[in-house]
C-alpha cells in the first residue's frame, strides 16, 4: 500500500493507483473529461490537474500514479485557475447551442461548465463550422462539438475493432474523422453506436425520428403498432429518473398507450419464435452436415460487422432474421389478418436498445410482407424523450397488459437482452427437443455475465455440443479469426455487437461505465425468474402461430417471412 495525503486527508491505496482513484477513496471528486472508467488512461484534456508538493508542473490526476509520502492538493487557486482556463479554451471552440443539443442535460462538458461557473469566457467563440454527417440511417456526427477526448476512437477501435474512427491532421486542426476523412457511411462503421456512449458531449448521437412517430399517431388512417425489445424495459426507467430495472413492464406498456400507440406488442414474442427457428436450424445443420459453427444473427451491428470484415463466413450465419425483423412481416400478415386490419394502414414501430436496428429495418430486402416490414425504429433514449415530454408520472400510472396476439412471451425471450441469453434460451429448447426429456433446471449460469468470451459444453443426451458466446466486436473478432483459420472447436456461437449484449446497446440510456451494464444484466435475470413460462417452445401464442399460420419451423412460410440472406459489403476502406 502507498500512503499519501490529499487535501490534508491521509489515504492508503494499492501501488499503481492514480491520484484520481486515491481521491475517490476519501470522497474527493476531481473533475474529468477525457477519463473513462473502462478505457485506457488518456491524460489529454488536463481538466483533472492537481498540485503535487515539490513539483512545478501540475499533475494529471487520472494518470499520475501515487507515490509514498506524496502531498496532493486538488483545489488550490492555481489548480482552479488552470481548470477554468482549460474549460474556457475548450468551450470557446465548442458551439454554444446547448439548448438544441441532443445531450442537453446529459453532457459532461455542460456539467463542468456549470461546476466551474464559466460565465464570461474571455476567449472569442470560434466554431469551425464543419459539415454534419447524416450519411447513415443510425448515427449522426456533429464534428464541431467534438472535444477530442478520443473516447469514441477507443470504443470503435479497442472495444469494437471496427476502426471506423481515427484522427486527421494535428494541432488545432486535428479532428476525429471516419476513415480517410470521409462520411461515416463510407467507413467500416457497423452503426453499433458504442461511440455515442463514449462521447462526453453531443458530437455523436442517434438519428432522431420521434417526429415520424408523432406524425403517424396524428394520422387517423394509421394504426400504430409497436414492439418492445427485451433489453428496453430494464433501462427505460433510467430515462425518467428511476433506478435500473425499476420500471414495471405493465406501467411501461401503459405509458406507451398514453403517448398514442394503438397496439403494444412485444418483440419477446418473436424472440421465442427465433429460438424455435434458430434452434431447429442448428439441429438441422448438426444432422445434415451444414456449415458449422453456426452464428446467431439477432444483432444487426454484428451482421454489419460480419458482412464487412468476414464476408467469407456469411454461410455460418443463421439465416434467421432478428426478432425485430421476424416481428415486422408477421404484424403485417398474420396479425393484420387476425385483427382484421388492412396491413397498408399499419405503421409498425419498434422500440430498440440499438442504433443499428434503424439501418436493419431500412435494408431493401426487409419487405417480406409486401410492405416495408418495420416502418420506424426508435431507441430507448428516444422513447425516454417522448416520455419526458408526455409529462407522465410513472409512479402513479396504472399498469396495463400487452395486446394479443404477439404480446405473450417467456423468460427465455427476456434474456435475449443480455449477452449469453440467446444461447441459454436456445439450449433450454434444444435440450428438450433433442432429448425429449424435461429440463429441470433451466438456468445455464456459464452463459451469463459480461465476460467478453464465454464457452460451454452441453450434453444433449450423449451428443456433446460446444458453444461460445462473445459480446463486443473485438471479442467476436477473436472467435471469427479462429473460424477462418479452421480452428474453431465450436458448433454454435452467439455474438452480440455491444458489450454486455443488448442491455449495453448503442440506443440505450447513455452508459458511462460497464458497471451500469452489469446492473441491467442482473435485472434481466430477475425478470426471467419471475416468468411462469421460461422455455420458448412453451409460449402458447407461438404454438398457435405455428398451428394456424407457419405450420412448422423452417417450413415454407418461415422461409418466406422469417429468414434472410447476407451480402458482402465491400467497403472502400477497412
Amino acid at each position, binding site marked *: 500500500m502507498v500512503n499519501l495525503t490529499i487535501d490534508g486527508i491521509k489515504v492508503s491505496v494499492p501501488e499503481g493507483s492514480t491520484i484520481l482513484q486515491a481521491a475517490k477513496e476519501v470522497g474527493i471528486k476531481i473533475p474529468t473529461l477525457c477519463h473513462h472508467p473502462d478505457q485506457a488512461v488518456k491524460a489529454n484534456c488536463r481538466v483533472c490537474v492537481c498540485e503535487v508538493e515539490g513539483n512545478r508542473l501540475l499533475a494529471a490526476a487520472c494518470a499520475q500514479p501515487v507515490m509514498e509520502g506524496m502531498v496532493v492538493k486538488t483545489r488550490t487557486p492555481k489548480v482552479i485557475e488552470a481548470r477554468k482556463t482549460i474549460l474556457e479554451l475548450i468551450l470557446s471552440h465548442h458551439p454554444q447551442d446547448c439548448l438544441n443539443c441532443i445531450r442537453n442535460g446529459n453532457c459532461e462538458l455542460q456539467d463542468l461548465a456549470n461546476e466551474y461557473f464559466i460565465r464570461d469566457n474571455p476567449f472569442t467563440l470560434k466554431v469551425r463550422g464543419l459539415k454534419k454527417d447524416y450519411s447513415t440511417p443510425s448515427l449522426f456526427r456533429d464534428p464541431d462539438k467534438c472535444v477530442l477526448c478520443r473516447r469514441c476512437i477507443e470504443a470503435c*477501435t479497442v472495444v469494437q475493432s471496427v*476502426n*471506423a*474512427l*481515427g*484522427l*486527421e*491532421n*494535428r494541432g488545432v486542426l486535428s479532428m476525429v*474523422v*471516419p*476513415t*480517410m*476523412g470521409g462520411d461515416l457511411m463510407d*467507413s*467500416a462503421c457497423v452503426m453499433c453506436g458504442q461511440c455515442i456512449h463514449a462521447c462526453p458531449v453531443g458530437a455523436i448521437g442517434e438519428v432522431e425520428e420521434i417526429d415520424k412517430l408523432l406524425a403517424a399517431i396524428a394520422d387517423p388512417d394509421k394504426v400504430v403498432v409497436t414492439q418492445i425489445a427485451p433489453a428496453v424495459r430494464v433501462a427505460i426507467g433510467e430515462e425518467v429518473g428511476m433506478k435500473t430495472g425499476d420500471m414495471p413492464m405493465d406501467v411501461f406498456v401503459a405509458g406507451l398507450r398514453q403517448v398514442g400507440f394503438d397496439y403494444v406488442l412485444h418483440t419477446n414474442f418473436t424472440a421465442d419464435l427465433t429460438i424455435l427457428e434458430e434452434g431447429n436450424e442448428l439441429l438441422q445443420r448438426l444432422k445434415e452436415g451444414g456449415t458449422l459453427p453456426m452464428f446467431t444473427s439477432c444483432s444487426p451491428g454484428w451482421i454489419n460487422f460480419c458482412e464487412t470484415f468476414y464476408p467469407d463466413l456469411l454461410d455460418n450465419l443463421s439465416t434467421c432474421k432478428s426478432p425485430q425483423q421476424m416481428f415486422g412481416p408477421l404484424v403485417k400478415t398474420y396479425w393484420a389478418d387476425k385483427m382484421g386490419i388492412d396491413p397498408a394502414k399499419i405503421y409498425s414501430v419498434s422500440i430498440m436498445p440499438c442504433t443499428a436496428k434503424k439501418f436493419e429495418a431500412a435494408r431493401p430486402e426487409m419487405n417480406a410482407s409486401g410492405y416495408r416490414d418495420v416502418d420506424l425504429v426508435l431507441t430507448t433514449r428516444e422513447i425516454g424523450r417522448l416520455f419526458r415530454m408526455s409529462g407522465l408520472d410513472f409512479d402513479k400510472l396504472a399498469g396495463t397488459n400487452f395486446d394479443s396476439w404477439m404480446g405473450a412471451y417467456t423468460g427465455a425471450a427476456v434474456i435475449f437482452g443480455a449477452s449469453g441469453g440467446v444461447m441459454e434460451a436456445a439450449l433450454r429448447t434444444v435440450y428438450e427437443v433433442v432429448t425429449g426429456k424435461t429440463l429441470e433446471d433451466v438456468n445455464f449460469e456459464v452463459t451469463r455475465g459480461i465476460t467478453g468470451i464465454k464457452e460451454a459444453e452441453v450434453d444433449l443426451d450423449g451428443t456433446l455440443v460446444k458453444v461460445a458466446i462473445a459480446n463486443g466486436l473485438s471479442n467476436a473478432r477473436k472467435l471469427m479469426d479462429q473460424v477462418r483459420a479452421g480452428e474453431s472447436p465450436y458448433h454454435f456461437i452467439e455474438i452480440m455487437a455491444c458489450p454486455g449484449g443488448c442491455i449495453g446497446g448503442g440506443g440505450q440510456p447513455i452508459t458511462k461505465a460497464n458497471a451500469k451494464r452489469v446492473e441491467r444484466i442482473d435485472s434481466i435475470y430477475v425478470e426471467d425468474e419471475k416468468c411462469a413460462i421460461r422455455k420458448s417452445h412453451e409460449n402458447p401464442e407461438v404454438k398457435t402461430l405455428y398451428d394456424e399460420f407457419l405450420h412448422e419451423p423452417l417450413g415454407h412460410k418461415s422461409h418466406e417471412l422469417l429468414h434472410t440472406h447476407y451480402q458482402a459489403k465491400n467497403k472502400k*476502406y*477497412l
Partner: protein
Amino acid sequence: MDYKDIIASYADKPGGMIEAYHAVQRELSYLPVEAVTEAARVFNLPASAAYGVATFYSMFSVASRGKNVIRICESAPCHVAGAAEVVAALERELGVKMGESTANGQFALEYTECVGQCQATPVITINGKVHLDVSPAKVPAILAEYK
C-alpha cells in the same frame, strides 16, 4: 516504380510506414488514397490509422500537389532575414499563393519548419535540396533549374 512495389519494399521494417510514405512521395510527390490504404494493408493497420499518420506530418500531403515541392522557412531567424520578401517573390514568379500548386503541376509552394541552415538565412528547399541566402533577386535563377 509502382506505389505498391515501393510500399512492399518496406514491409519488413517494423514501424516503417513513415519511410514508405517518404519513398512514395519521392516518386509521386504526394500520397494518393490508394497508397495510404495499401500502406495500411502492408503494415497491418486500419486505414484510419494510416490516414492519421499521413495527415500528421507536414511533409506528407494526401492532396495532389506540384512535382517540385518548394518549401520556405519562416522561422524567426529566416523571418528577420527577409523570408517574407522571398515568399512574395516566389508567389509572384509562380503565380500561385502559399499552399498552392502551379496549374501545370510543376511546382508546389509550402512553408517548412527550420531546416537547420541558419548560418545563411533566408533558406528554401526544393525537393529537399537546400538553397541558402535566398533573396528575391535570386528566385528566377533558382526556379530555372527545375523548369
